[in-house]
């Protein structure tokens, strides 16, 4: 079937099978490989994107369900001049990533959190990330990065 949607502000369309997942449409049809696949049970959050402003695991919805939707992915997060946005920059500054595989999902999840909760507590951040698995960082620096991105003082959280 034919579907169309807006991805990071661009109108796109494609021909998909009924069983095609949104994540596969993004990765295979649109060649936007920034959104990752880390599992097959919708547990890891590596595939997190925003659909109509809501954080969604793109492996858990069909591409056809996103027909007509506004989709935002990691590729559309940087500032217009290509520089890292506040959240991305905080991840770099506080070493919130290692292999980078979970990172797109983490950034998308953090973006949604900070949209609704401008100054989350550590506990709120950890709770919000329950759908995103990182195997590299032990989460310390991810939580710290999100605190810093929200403008909170992170100097008391153990250095680096």
């Amino acid at each position: 079937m034919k579907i169309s949607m807006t991805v990071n502000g661009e109108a796109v369309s494609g021909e998909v099978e009924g069983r095609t997942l949104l994540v596969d449409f993004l990765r295979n049809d649109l060649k936007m490989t920034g959104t990752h696949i880390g599992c097959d049970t919708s547990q890891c959050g590596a595939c997190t994107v925003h659909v109509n402003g809501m954080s969604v695991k793109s492996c858990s919805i069909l591409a056809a369900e996103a027909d007509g939707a506004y989709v935002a992915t990691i590729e559309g997060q940087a500032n217009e001049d290509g520089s890292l946005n506040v959240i991305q920059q905080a991840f770099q500054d506080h070493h919130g990533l290692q292999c980078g595989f979970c990172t797109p999902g983490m950034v998308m999840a953090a973006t949604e959190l900070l949209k609704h909760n401008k100054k989350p507590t550590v506990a709120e951040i950890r709770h919000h990330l329950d759908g995103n698995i990182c195997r590299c960082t032990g989460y310390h620096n991810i939580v710290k990065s999100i605190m810093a991105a929200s403008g909170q003082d992170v100097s008391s959280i153990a250095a680096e």
Partner: protein
Amino acid sequence: MPKDSGIGASTKRVEDQRFLTGKGRYTSDINLVNQTHAVFLRSDVAHGRIKSIDTTAAAAMPGVLAIFTGEDFAEVGGNPAGWAITSRDGEPMKEPKRPVLAHGKVRHVGDAYAAVIAETVEQACDAADAIVAEIEELPAVVDMSAALAGGPFVHDEIETNQCFDWGWIEDNRAATDAAIKNAPHVTTLELINNRLVPNAIETRASTADYDPGTGEYTLYTTSQNPHLTRLLISAFVMGIAENKLRVVSPDVGGGFGSKIYHYGEEALVLAASKKLCRPVKWTATRSESFLTDAHGRDHVTKIELACEKDGTFIAFRTDTMANVGAYLSNFSTATPTFLHGTLMAGNYTVPHVYVNVKTVFTNTAPVDAYRGAGRPEATFSLERVIDKCAHELGLDAMEMRRKNFIKPEQFPYVSAAGLEYDTGNYDALVDKLNELADFKGFEARRRLSEADGKLRGLGINTYIEACGLAPSNLTGVLGSRVGYYDAATVRVNATGNLSVMVGAQSTGQGHETAFAQVVSEMLGIDQSSIDIVHGDTAKIPFGMGSYGSRSIAVCGPAVVRATEKIINKATKIAAHMLETAEADIEFKDGQFSVAGTDKSVSFGEVAFKAYVPQNYPVEDLEPGLEETAFYDPGNFTYPAGAYACEVEVDPETGKVTVENFTAVDDFGNVVNPMIVTGQVHGGIGQGIGQALLENCSYDDNGQLLSASYMDYAMPRASDLPFYTVDHSCNTPCTHNPLGVKGCGEAGAIGSPPTIVNAVINALHSAGHTHVTHIDMPVSPARVWAAINAQ
């Protein structure tokens, strides 16, 4: 002022720009023109005889291009073990074939016995469903004791299920036995080091591309060491000439050991690509990863500690059964032996150590090195039995460790397990830990917890590990079938910027930043003009990849040596340019100057001259500025550390929460403190995962019960605390030019015993002194059961 570039600076990572914007390039992100897709058919029984595989219907389905079964690879060598181990009686280890696709028999759930290649993944899946295989299920063996007791045989020809029965050091055995027999006190502990799944978030993936025009193969694959993969495929598995096979590992989304090894899927896609003359791509699902990635740990151990009544150690004796699963993986024979037995003296001046390891085949996925590889198993046994012993003798657990520490003035120190530790200061680590973990304030915190109905426990641990896998001389004696060293090429381009080709392969450790810091420091040029090139056998010199914290400890010195050669040659060129003798040239901050004058040329000018060698003494000096060094060190490196944590146990439910965690490590010199600290965080996260949550569990029939993230408890952000990490107590390694030791595994080694010691301590505080051990994962059910077992 902290430095902002060069060695010792917490330079921000250059790779982050692409990872944070979705521009990372992982294996599965690569799509080749005209590519096809492979899907594997995997056994759903743990043990079975393949009677027939009917592919007729599947072959006729839409999009299907080829179907392979074990028969197609019957002549192929199969995947070898990288280390040959000899049993105590002198017998070589039993080494069954590990075929590309199972042939005759399947030996674990997930064992692949057929593969379908089709135009799309969906078509391949549909066709795989249509293959009819008749597999006669055989009784399976999962438990190691049952396997050794004559259970069903995983390999018909190995009628013991034992790979080897290894003793270390066999000459110490009698003396250790006698010492234990005569000792005033002996503590015995039986424990399990639980089986884990490495779970890199990027699953394994491989794409092969055969070029019939040149006869060359390219394999894109998720690997921690592309050169070793090439070597194994070429020399053992497929016989492809090494120069006709290029292995590329682009960005790799974590490995933790599981991507060190060569796997059958890599050989399959290569063979399929040749047959079809089209690229063939395979990406594992997470379920496939659970079933087929090499698992970690899985030891059942009895350890004894003999000591004087005052806690002075006399002997450690260990009996371990180590599961290797159904087939030998590349390091699976080295992990329970040389990476485990040789560390069984810990940080201590214990006179007698003896280790026996029986390695057992079972109908489970292959087990191999996982973060720390053998050292976590050694440390866990030692540090648990020491805690138990201290309790039995009524001694302070930390004081007992201190009493037995090797002292700074005793280095270099040859341990009773046969390694020569070059340097260390374990008391300093403990002093620092004391300060950071605020042991003094613990009792007050315990009272607060108690007021809240919770039991608070303090756990401690010290560890030592051997890192920097090399040297070839030593690993050769220990049974390695390959050399261990690393290599680097520094190529100075005509415009003065550099490409540095390294044999180490990043799986997220930030090599592009850290190696560039080293070169930048040495040459006094800006890091932004240095590119680190890795992960492609066509571009890099030979290299042995990254595992065992060998990147900066073995490849780092190779980079140093190659850069020194660059400086030497550049000095000659500068001397020519400045019309003076080489001995008069001084090199500092990127400038070559004539000593005592203001005459100088910059590094960039020298580079340019090397490539535009006009008016150049070509008889005495070659043009160009490119140097390679291979580095094979004299010894392992020996990082060490002291860890502490406090846990709260809810006595009503048995749930354990980690309240704080402090790690003090000695990594020698540190190139990038930010990256090093991040490595420790990640290791602690995995160690706490092992201690409290993770467990790879098979039922008696060999079905994997924990085959998805719904059943395998991966640590999530809310399971873990912030960590306090310190590396101020460094004693630089004495035998490599950077003085580095390696940091990648420390956290995973030091944390599991710390957590379990803390839980036991918490239970004892409430009088549950009958609980002397709880096996990992220390789940609420196990804690509750232990508390209520009185």
